[in-house]
């Protein structure tokens, strides 16, 4: 087994030593009593023996270098084969991080003078011992202590197993909910009880079988739109309209841009606010959307808009026929779900509409022009 040679402490107050000369080189066999090197302290120069029999595998501090007490300055291997291997590892390590071999060992072997180090050691051990390894992903190599690791967003991982808490799994089984489908519809892993409890019954909603959705009477399209530009635009408007009203304006704009229309009525629903009817919201400045200018027309809406962003809801499929747009998503992107009837809104037009809306959200200048 390879043995680290540390810079010895040769005097009471000495904290570093200057290597004057090496008496052995890498590959040389050494006996415990052989002089390995000469070290100069502020008081004297001393010959330091190897301390054990073996083969000098690598030297990590050249003659002329001053090295803190306790740092690794050389490695003595049991035999030539091990010496070769150790030397190879050192070379590989230094090639990887661009550090000289002397740097590689510099931090690992500093002496532990006080309780601070004891604490650091204990914490590191604690963190390593407890690190959960649910996905088979390797635990963080540094073992940074005392920090809760972020949730494994990527999920399934190499094993393909979905991360869900026992309680969530139990409920999913009882309700016949497929966890994979839940993940497919955007649920974060590990899946918690709440996510399963909030999921609609598998018989009634697309969530349990997203692949099967097209079978339903109404068709569905989904788009993603990055939202930062849209959010910035909203923040600039004074007074700021509600996000749902602004989205209605964009939707109306996209509709008019892709299909043309004289007058557009949009029914808007959000969580925790009364439903809203807007007529031609795209023809009103954003800052006036809250006023009467775009308020209520009578008659059936041309399209319904459901803003469910920033809720924990993962999906919605309207039971009623007609055209509806549901917004889901997180702080960075909207998921736009367009449900429509191909008899009244052909697929090509629906696709065009949704694509145009997503483009407008990502690049609001398309709306403002």
């Amino acid at each position, binding site marked *: 087994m390879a043995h680290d040679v540390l810079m010895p402490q040769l005097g009471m107050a000495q904290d570093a030593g200057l290597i004057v000369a090496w008496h052995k080189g890498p590959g040389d066999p050494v006996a415990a009593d052989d002089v390995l090197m000469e070290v100069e302290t502020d008081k004297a120069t001393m010959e330091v023996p190897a301390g054990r029999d073996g083969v000098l595998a690598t030297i990590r501090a050249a003659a002329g270098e001053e090295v803190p007490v306790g740092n690794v300055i050389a490695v003595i291997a049991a035999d030539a084969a091990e010496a070769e291997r150790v030397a190879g590892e050192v070379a590989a390590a230094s090639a990887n991080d661009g550090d000289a071999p002397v740097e590689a060992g510099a931090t690992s072997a500093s002496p532990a003078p006080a*309780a*601070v180090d*004891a*604490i650091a050691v*204990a*914490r590191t*051990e*604690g*963190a390593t011992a*407890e*690190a*959960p390894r*649910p996905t088979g992903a390797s635990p963080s190599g540094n073992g940074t*202590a*005392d*920090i*809760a*690791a*972020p*949730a*494994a967003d990527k999920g399934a991982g190499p094993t393909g197993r979905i991360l869900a*808490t*026992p*309680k*969530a*799994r*139990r409920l999913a089984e009882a309700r016949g909910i497929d966890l994979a489908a839940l993940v497919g519809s955007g649920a*974060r892993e*590990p899946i*918690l*009880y*709440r996510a399963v409890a909030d999921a609609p019954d598998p018989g009634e909603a697309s969530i349990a079988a997203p692949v099967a959705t097209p079978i339903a009477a109404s068709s569905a399209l989904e788009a993603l739109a990055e939202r930062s530009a849209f959010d910035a635009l909203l923040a600039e408007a004074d007074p700021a309209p509600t996000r749902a009203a602004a989205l209605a304006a964009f939707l109306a704009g996209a509709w008019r841009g892709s299909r043309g229309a004289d007058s557009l009525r949009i029914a808007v629903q959000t969580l925790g606010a009364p439903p809203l009817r807007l007529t031609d919201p795209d023809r009103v400045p954003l800052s006036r959307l809250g006023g009467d200018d775009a308020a209520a027309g009578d008659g059936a809406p041309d399209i319904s808009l459901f803003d469910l962003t920033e809720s924990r809801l993962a999906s919605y499929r309207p039971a009623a026929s007609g055209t509806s747009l549901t917004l889901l998503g997180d702080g960075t992107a909207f998921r736009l779900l367009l449900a429509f009837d191909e008899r009244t809104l052909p697929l090509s037009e629906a696709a065009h509409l949704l694509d145009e809306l997503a483009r407008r959200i990502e690049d609001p200048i398309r709306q403002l022009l």
Partner: protein
Amino acid sequence: MRGPPMRELTLSKAVNEAIAEEMRRDPSIILMGEDVAEAGTPFKVLSGLVEEFGPERILDTPISEPGFTGIAVGAAMTGMRPIVDLMFGDFLFLVMDQLCNQAAKTHYMSGGKLSVPMVLRTNMGATRRSAAQHSQSLHALVAHIPGLKVAMPSSAYEAKGLLKSAIRDADPVVIFEDKLMYQDKAPVPEEEYLLPLGKAEILREGRDISFVATSSMRQVAEAAAARLAEDGVSAEIIDPRTIVPLDEETILASVRKTGRVIVIDEGHQSFGVTAEIAARIAEKAFYHLDAPVGRMGAMDVPIPFSPALEDLTVPTPERLVERAMASLRGEPVHGA
């Protein structure tokens, strides 16, 4: 605790009252230890007892923990009900043979012919700047030995009620008082009461996460729960009161309700009380868990003398809030 008239008592005074009441009731009770009579212990817990009961029943012993603990075991076997005062919990290491080989096993090894109705009162708890040999919380050590009961009062109320039950118990009971709580006050009924060994108490009802907190960790849990409440998180707090016997049912029922739990105890985390309780929860309420069982114990280092370092080694409300929030967010939880 509704109904009976209450007054505020320090934990120290509550212990004193429990012993005095029991000694008045039962003449076979004696109390022995270092500096218990004239000095009334370094924490002044026993002040005044020698005046009432005399030096025949309140015995100042030489500085020989194994000696007087052995005497107590023998006295208990032969009809007395000794209360042994071990000045610091750290001195448990000195009495391990008397306690674990003799007191704990006598009833079993005598085929039930002998019993050892003694109480060993001692203390625990760090952050008193008493350094590594006077700050340990060693209750897990004795909880590991079958035949010993272990009580951990979390306030003056528990201290009095549990100690009176311990004194009346037919078997050896070790009772750990947190030395930082001796001056803490809590409402204590005017009239006599007993608290059963082996019955946990729900100190605070909640629905989102359970804290199982022993001894002074109750205060940590209560402070954390108050802060979490400001964020709309409702934490339930369970005080096991005794870790042997452990009221598993109350703990498991709470976990089944909330789905999340953090166990907080001031003993070293590794191989300790938090590990035992966490393991039982994982075994018996696994399918109700919505997050990994969390543990917070003292860091696995000798308690540092440096105040700044010592404070880092024990669970705090801040760290508990952090851990609770991580658990609620569904993050895997690491670290001590």
